[in-house]
Every structure is written in C-alpha cells, then in structure tokens.
C-alpha cells in the first residue's frame, strides 16, 4: 500500500466455456499462453510493474490450480512485507449463507472486509483473462487529474465491430456521458476493457446499496456504471493503445499465440522494462537436434525438437520427434509429438501425446482443431 495507495482486485472466476476442453479442469485465467505463461500472469505482472502491492484474486470456477498458482505471489515479486496476492473464493460468513459470486460487482461486495483491512484510497478492478501490458499507475494519474469518481479503460475498436462491445460515449474532455452495452447502432468506438479505477469510499457505498437491490445483476457493466451515470458522477474514459486480446475461443487463443511470431508484435514480451513474470521451471534450455528444422517459431525451455517446426509456438517441455512436423500449431506444456506425426493448424492441449505417424489437423481447415485427448499412433 505504500506505492500508490491503490489495491487491485482481479476477477478470475470465469469458466471460459468457449475454450471447451481447455477449461474443463482449469479456469480461463489459468490457461497457458505464449510458451511459458498463463493468462493471469499478464494482469498480475502489470500490477507488479505498476507499483501495486496488494492484489486480491477472485476465483470461483475450478479454482484449485488457479488458487495455488496465484497464491505464490513471489513469482510476480508481490511478496514484500506490505505486499501480497490473496486468493478470494466465495466464503461462508456469520450473517449469510455460503454463496457464489452473483456477478462482478458482487464479487467485490463480498470482499469489502478484505479491502477495508488495507484502507486504500483507490481500487482497481481487472479481468483475469485478458492479454495486454498496461501501466495502471498512469491510468491512476489520469483518474486523479480528472478528479474522477471512476475511470474506465477503453480501447478503440473498428466501428463495424463496436456493436459487439460495451461502448462508452464521451464528450470532448473524455467524460463519459452514456454507456451502451452492445448497441445495434454504436455512436462511438470506445469499447470498455473491463478495467476500472474507483475511488474506494464511493464504490464501497455503491456496492453496499447494490447488494440489497432485488432487481440488480450485481454487475459493474449492467448495474454499477449505469447507476453512477444516473447519479451524475464523474466518469472518465482512459484510452488504451497497444496490444489487447480477450482470448474467448480456441481460434482467438491460437491467433494470440501466432501474433508472437510477428517480429513487430506490439505485445513485445522481450521488453526488459516491462517483463511478464511467471512460474519458474527447472528444466534445461531447449534443444534442437542435428536433423531438426525450426523456422518462424516461438520456443521455450524444456523443449526437444528433432523434427520440423514451422509457424508454431511450443510451450514448456513440448517434445517433437524425428521426422515429425508441427505446422502453424500451438503445443501446450508437455505435449509429445512422436516420430513421423504431423500436426497442422491445431492447438494441442497440455500433456497430450500424438502417437507415431498420426496426422492431426489440416492446412485448409476453417477453424483451428483443438486436440484435447491423446491420439493413437499409426503403425
């Protein structure tokens, strides 16, 4: 709490059901991305790099792995004396039954006691399943400069896609005058990124009022923000520029990985001034054999490549056998592609084995093939 008096709460309860088998056992924020990361590493590293010391992570769906993963705050340097990452699943309280989080706002409401122990001046609300780099401290500067009650990060999306998003209509000064959820005829292209800074004292009051409202969805977008606008509060949009991805589907997760193959990719994970931190694994560096071919690829430690890898992203400990081919694909941690197998335009889930000589995926498929179960070899 010493650095900027802002506490962050990461909403990480979502299942991400359009990621199908990838999220059967883990919540979406824990899904692997970019060779060595999990999606939640991005908001957590952004917090650490923005000088935020205390982060609450609100978990709900299949949270065992996510809970143990984020609890090790040292990975992101969030383990100093006044610092920490706190896992906050729904809990039973003396005056209420054990309940799930009923909505994004309710998840915060149910943890008012947690936030109060730190008594922050500002609270930052984040989503745990977006891939981007952002300096929240600069957003806080804007929040303060505007004397805002709430500041909402927005992304400029193509006008023709704006009807898929929650759109903020602002005046010349950036003050939000209207919020429209998925408007059929959008008036602006400023899409909400689900990143909010609130002045805590006010948000606390609003959450307490919202908790007892019968017709509320207890959601920031549907309830809290519209109420604030109705009340004539100072809400400002904060324009974000740069790489931002919400990887909701297998295709978009694959695409986000492929983006890393582009030398000019704005995400630039190689930037030493804004590192993305993650779990430290103890494997060897990767090894490329005498017969291997590796081109246009993103490869991390623990991989062994004896075959051909092109246009692909290989995660920790992925193994590619002799004469095997991995083309335009994503191999998640521990995937084994045995000798002679061919994988094309596929996303192969954690630990899956593609047997000898097996062929999966095809170059002209419309969608990316998700391979979530072992594939038997062909003799």
């Amino acid at each position, binding site marked *: 709490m010493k650095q900027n008096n802002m506490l962050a709460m990461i909403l990480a309860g979502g299942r991400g059901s359009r990621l199908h088998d990838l999220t059967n056992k883990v919540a979406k924020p824990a899904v692997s991305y*970019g*060779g*060595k990361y999990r999606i939640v590493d991005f908001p957590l590293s952004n917090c650490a790099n923005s000088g935020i010391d205390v982060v609450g992570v609100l978990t709900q769906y299949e949270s065992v792995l996510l809970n143990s993963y984020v609890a090790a705050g*040292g990975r992101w340097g969030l383990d100093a004396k006044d610092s920490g990452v706190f896992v906050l699943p729904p809990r039973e309280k003396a005056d209420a039954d054990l309940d799930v989080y009923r909505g994004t706002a309710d998840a915060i409401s149910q943890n008012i006691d947690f936030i109060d122990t730190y008594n922050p001046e500002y609270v930052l609300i984040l989503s745990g399943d977006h891939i981007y780099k952002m300096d929240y401290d600069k957003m806080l500067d804007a929040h303060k400069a505007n004397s805002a009650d709430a500041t909402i990060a927005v992304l400029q999306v193509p006008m023709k896609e704006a009807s898929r998003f929650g759109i903020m209509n602002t005046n010349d000064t950036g003050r939000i005058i209207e919020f429209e959820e998925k408007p059929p005829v959008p008036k602006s292209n400023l899409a909400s990124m689900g990143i909010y800074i609130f002045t805590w004292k006010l948000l606390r009051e609003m959450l307490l009022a919202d908790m007892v409202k019968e017709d509320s969805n207890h959601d920031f977008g549907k309830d809290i923000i519209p109420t604030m606008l109705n009340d004539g509060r100072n809400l400002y949009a904060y324009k974000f520029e740069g790489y931002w991805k919400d990887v909701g589907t297998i295709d978009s997760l694959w695409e986000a990985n492929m983006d*890393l*193959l582009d*030398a000019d990719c704005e995400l630039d*994970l*190689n930037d030493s001034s804004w*590192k*993305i*931190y*993650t779990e*430290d694994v*103890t*494997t*060897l*560096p*990767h*090894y*490329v*054999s*005498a*017969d*291997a071919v*590796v*081109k*246009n*690829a*993103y*490869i*991390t*430690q623990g991989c*062994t490549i004896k075959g051909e890898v092109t246009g692909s*992203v*290989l995660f920790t400990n992925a193994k590619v056998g002799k004469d095997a081919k991995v083309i335009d694909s994503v191999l998640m941690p521990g995937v084994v592609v045995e000798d002679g197998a061919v994988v094309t335009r596929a996303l192969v889930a954690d630990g899956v084995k593609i047997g000898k000589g097996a062929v999966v995926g095809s170059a002209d498929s419309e969608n990316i093939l998700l391979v979530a179960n072992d594939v038997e070899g062909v003799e």
Partner: protein
Amino acid sequence: MAKAFGIINTTGNHIWVEGMQDYRPIGAFSFLGRYRVIDFAMSNFSNSDIDRIHVLAGSKPRSLTEHLGSGRQYNINSKRGNVQILFADNHSRNSIYNTDIATFDENMDDSIGKMKEPYVVIAPSNMVFKQSFKKLVDTHAASGADITLLYHSVENANEAYLNCDYVTLNRQKGVLEIQKNRGNEAQRDIFMGTYVMKTELFIELIGKAKTLSSMYTLAQIVNLSCDELDVRGYAHEGYFAAITDLKSYYDANMALLDIEKAEDLINDDWPIYTRTNDSCPTQYFADAEVKHSVISNGCLIEGTIENSIIGRGCIIKKGVVIKDSVILPDTVIEEGIRVECQVVDKHSKLLHCKELVAAADAPGYVRRGDTL
C-alpha cells in the same frame, strides 16, 4: 535437523581461467546457457535436504552473491535453512595467503564454529556433477571412516583435469595420498573437491593447518592426515566436469550437447535450480538454421547456429554463422559474422569484425562486454 551442513569452497590459487575469471569466480560462470556453475553444488545440497550452506566468496564476489541472493531459488526453506556468504580479507599483495583454510579460520567464531550439525560436506565451486550428498553422508557415517573423499575415475588425465588433485587408493578404497595431476598418466582417480567428515574433525583440521603453515589448504592438510586418519574414497559415476581453464570450461559445456547426457544430469528427479531471469521464449525467424544446439530463452535468431550453446537473451542476426561455440547471455552478433570455436563472454557485441575463428583444442575468447 539435517545431519550435515554444507560448504562450497573456493578454487585454489593454482587454478585460473584466463579471461573469464578476471570478472568473477568460477562458481559464477554461466553454464549451459541458463545455469551458473555453482547451481550444481547448491542443488546437490538442496536435493540432499542440506539447507544450511556456507559459500566462500573468494575474490570479485559481486556476480556470485548477486546470483545466490537469499538462496530461495534453490528450494531451501527460507526460515529454517540459510545461505551464508563467507567473506575473507584478501591479501592481494601476497596471494599465497588466500587459502580456504584462512577463510574458514576467519569465519570460525561467527559461522562455522556455531554449526550444530554433526557432519559437514564440503563441495567445490568449479565442478559440475550430480551427487546425492545424503547418500554420501550415510555411507560415510556407516563406514566409520574419519573422512570420505569423492573421486571420479578417468582415462584421460594426461590431457584433461590438469591442475586437479587426484587420490591414490589402496584396495580397500583407503586414500593414501592426494596429489596434483600433472598429466603424467591417463588413468587417474580425480579428487572431486568433495569431503565429508565430522564437524569437530573439520574444526580440528583447520586449527592444525593454521599452526603448521599459513599457506596450507584443506586438501593439503587432509593429505598430511592420511597416515593417521582413516580417509576413504567414494566413487562418483555419471557426468563430471572440472573447470580449471578455458579449454575445460568449453569442453564441459560442449559435452552436454549430447542431450541424453544433459537430461541425465538435469531432470525432474534431480532438478538443478538457478535464478530466473524472467526471459520470454526464444524467437526463430524465417532464415534461422539451427542444428544440434542448446538454446536458452529470450533469444532472437535469424542466422545459422550449429553445435553450439547459446545463453539467454542473445541476438543472432541474419547471415551469422556460429559453429562449435559457447555464447554467454546477452550477446549481440551482427549480420554476416562468422564465429567458430569461441567462448563469447556476456554482454559483448560483435559488430564490425568479419570472423572469429579458432580451433576446438584451443578455443578463442571474447571478453565480457567487449565490442569487436
């Protein structure tokens, strides 16, 4: 409480790695792309449940102490265990006084003398191998010997392991003598700088060495004690490298291009811990041609790499050809440069030269941070 505490020793004055050691002790040398040499001794201790470890700083300790940090990366309990650096006054005007015994003696009252563990394991900082020290201590305790020394039988002591010590054993594995390997014979039992003994005996030997000569090292006093004490050898098997000069450093790295050997040395059952640098994965571009090489994270590769080891965060531009080389972290090699049989030290930039070619039996060296 663990049965033993650990000490990681410095190398003696007879060992000097030309070039690289100007900047840091051998323990802090980058190894196999992402490790430091000392990670192997530290991990051997940690994997053997020995979590109180003293590390002799030696000269120029910045890089070593920075790497070790609090020691938490070695999976050592942060409350019960600890990593302690043993500093010593450096007699720079007369290096013969810079012995391991002198450092032990200086740290006797505050550190070594206070240890409650009944045994001590002393491991070297310039050697790479895996060994369960737990097994070594148990074998030692069961044998009733006073001191147990770890050794490795080699068939090429006439051309390698020069300046290492070797042990002469009787048939019962009793150590008769510890001597310098001068390369006179091919078959030798090379002493791996690793000792197990009772803590009391260790303290006694330090005192004895001090009274006999200010120049004595631990190896010398143990050698002198071979007659009166029961000193035994314990054979090590598997990969073993002793880094005593640039050639042995180069060879030690290159030998692990045999990936099966590397996987035997470093695996989930015997992890080798190191300090993470949080580098992103390595990016290969369309023109990359990489064969039979070990590549660390954070590199950008557009050129050709064969039979080489590339450290973290290296930039290898188009048309570059790297062969049979060890490239240390954060090196930049500009377009079209040819590098063969070189050890290129950290943070160097090869910008203007056309080629750097040496032979594998006498690898070349590019200094840390140099621009060529």
